[in-house]
């Protein structure tokens, strides 16, 4: 029973990582850049939802939608101001700009909302006064937040895969990720496509932020940093650039983390997660579902 409980917690945590990892992986696939500021967009999303529901008394769903809208705009603005002027610049320059953007968001949040921790009220309410499902005569209790997180992740994943594979815009995104120049010659607006990718990634970050803070309710300006790094790890784990890879990488990472905490040691759980990542990358250098790109001579 304990095993099952840990497994479900792991999948739930992994689902959050997967949603964040999607943002990383899509942006990487299209713009070939590591968007370090992504983790901080999560934090902004959580703050927006916190103020919308707690201060202004908006219903939870409206709060989530509002934070998605704000983060989408934020993502587009960041892309336009900081990343678009560097489209032709070396990758490292873009990376440093993304790091600068990450500092900027964290420090703005600290100025606007102070660094004192906010207690985030879960957006998932109670049913009959219960916060979770009791299964097997109460031997296993699964909170509604956990269930909602997993369901949301599955829905997002299905929607995204359908969008990328079936729609015309999705086709444009795939084309841009494969060859920007050729895509432009075919009449695809590369800049719009990249902006759209950032918009989707940031909207997902908002959802992830709300879910993350519903499960782990302390909200500070650096809330997004560590989950951001782990989700990035998850994206690499699954093969960066691949959407199903982000899902598998995220969920595996979540399960490994919870199992390491439960069965080995709490203090070294992060080290164990990263050690598994290293082993996987050594065996399969492009991640679990990554494409093998042969080098041109």
């Amino acid at each position, binding site marked *: 029973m304990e095993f099952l409980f840990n497994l479900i917690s792991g999948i739930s945590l992994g689902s959050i990582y997967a949603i964040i990892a999607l943002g990383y992986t899509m942006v990487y696939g299209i713009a070939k850049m590591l968007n370090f500021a992504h983790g901080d967009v999560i934090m902004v999303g959580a703050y927006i939802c916190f103020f919308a529901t707690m201060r202004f008394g908006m219903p939870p769903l409206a709060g989530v939608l509002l934070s998605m809208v704000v983060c989408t705009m934020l993502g587009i603005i960041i892309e336009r101001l900081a990343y678009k002027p560097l489209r032709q610049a070396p990758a490292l320059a873009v990376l*440093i*700009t993304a790091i600068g*953007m990450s500092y900027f968001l964290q420090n703005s949040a600290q100025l606007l909302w102070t660094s004192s921790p906010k207690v985030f009220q879960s957006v998932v309410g109670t049913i009959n006064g219960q916060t979770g499902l009791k299964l097997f005569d109460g031997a296993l209790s699964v909170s509604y937040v956990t269930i909602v997180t997993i369901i949301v992740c599955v829905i997002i994943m299905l929607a995204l895969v359908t969008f990328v594979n079936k729609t015309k815009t999705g086709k444009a995104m795939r084309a841009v990720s494969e060859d920007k120049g050729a895509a432009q010659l075919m009449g695809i607006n590369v800049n719009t496509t990249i902006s759209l990718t950032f918009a989707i990634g940031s909207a997902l970050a908002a959802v992830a932020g709300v879910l993350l803070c519903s499960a782990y309710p302390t909200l500070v300006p650096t809330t997004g940093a560590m989950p951001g790094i782990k989700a990035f790890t998850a994206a690499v784990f699954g093969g960066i650039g691949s959407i199903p890879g982000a899902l598998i990488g995220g969920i595996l990472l979540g399960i490994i983390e919870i199992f390491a905490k439960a069965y080995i040691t709490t*203090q070294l759980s992060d080290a164990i997660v990263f050690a598994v990542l290293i082993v996987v990358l050594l065996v399969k250098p492009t991640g679990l579902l990554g494409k093998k790109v042969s080098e041109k001579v």
Partner: protein
Amino acid sequence: MNLKTMNKTTRSNFITYAMVIVAFVVVQAMASTGGISSSLKGQLVPICAYIVMAISLNLTVGVLGELSLGHAGFMSVGAFSGVIAAIYFGQTIENTAVVMILAMAVGGFFAAVVGVLVGVPVLRLSGDYLAIVTLAFGEIIKGIVNNLYVGMDANGLHFCMIKNTLEMEGGKMLLNGPMGLTGIPRIATFTMGFVLIMVCLIVIFNLVNSKSGRAIMALRDNKIAAQSVGINVTSYKLMAFVISAAMAGMAGVLFATNFSTVVASKFDINTSILVLVFVVLGGLGNMRGSIIAATVLTVLPEVLREFSEYRMLVYAIVLIVMMLATNNPTLKNAISNFTGKFKRNSGKGEKVNG
């Protein structure tokens, strides 16, 4: 010494040495006459440590061409092993300079060993995958040091992991897991920092101008072409990586012996990124740039103290604007038109000499 008869590289290296020496003399003079504030005085040794971190990371990122996000991990290994060595040797040796040299040797050695352990698997990967694995190793090192307990008694040093189960006869705890190292002898001085910078510069400049250095740079510029002329990829990559790690370890010793306590979480991904920012802002492969960037960016938050809570925000904006100004073609042209007059004059001189 005649600047004009030297070749371009020698002259550039000479200018870098001269810059460091002049800066050291000026700061030393200002410090003795009370010309600098006490908060800035406290920053002198950390600045030296960050400069060494920056030039050593520049060896990996700029000269070898591999992005490393775990450089602080080596700093951590060096800091903790070096400080334990400093305490151990400090029992019998009075002279702090000798203790410092021994501590640096130990710190550098352990960082180099970890560099080999990390480098052998990591350097098989490339690009962003290599970056993420170095990040992972940095976090693993942090996790391990955070759970390491070291004590010292009459029988020597004792180690254990995760839980403090040390059985000692008297003695004292040196490294207490997440509480970190306490009771560090504060033996680091600005002069030692200066000497370390000079030693690292000499090693790097001589390496870059040697056969090995050219092999390393050939690997960076075109791996396949380098391989085809018989350059051993693994050994040269490992060479640069391990030297870089050893220097980071020594910087860690210098950094840690400036404070009385040090915790493992100080050397996390944020420190690695901070150093990477110095390197990129200073210019890849340009040691002088790294030195200037490390100094300016460490002093900048101090100078911005007037803005108090806004200073990190200003820092972030400066970082973004700098990157945009130096990398965006439109902005770059605008700036070079603005400063065109200066450029043209100095450009002429260079052509004649070069």
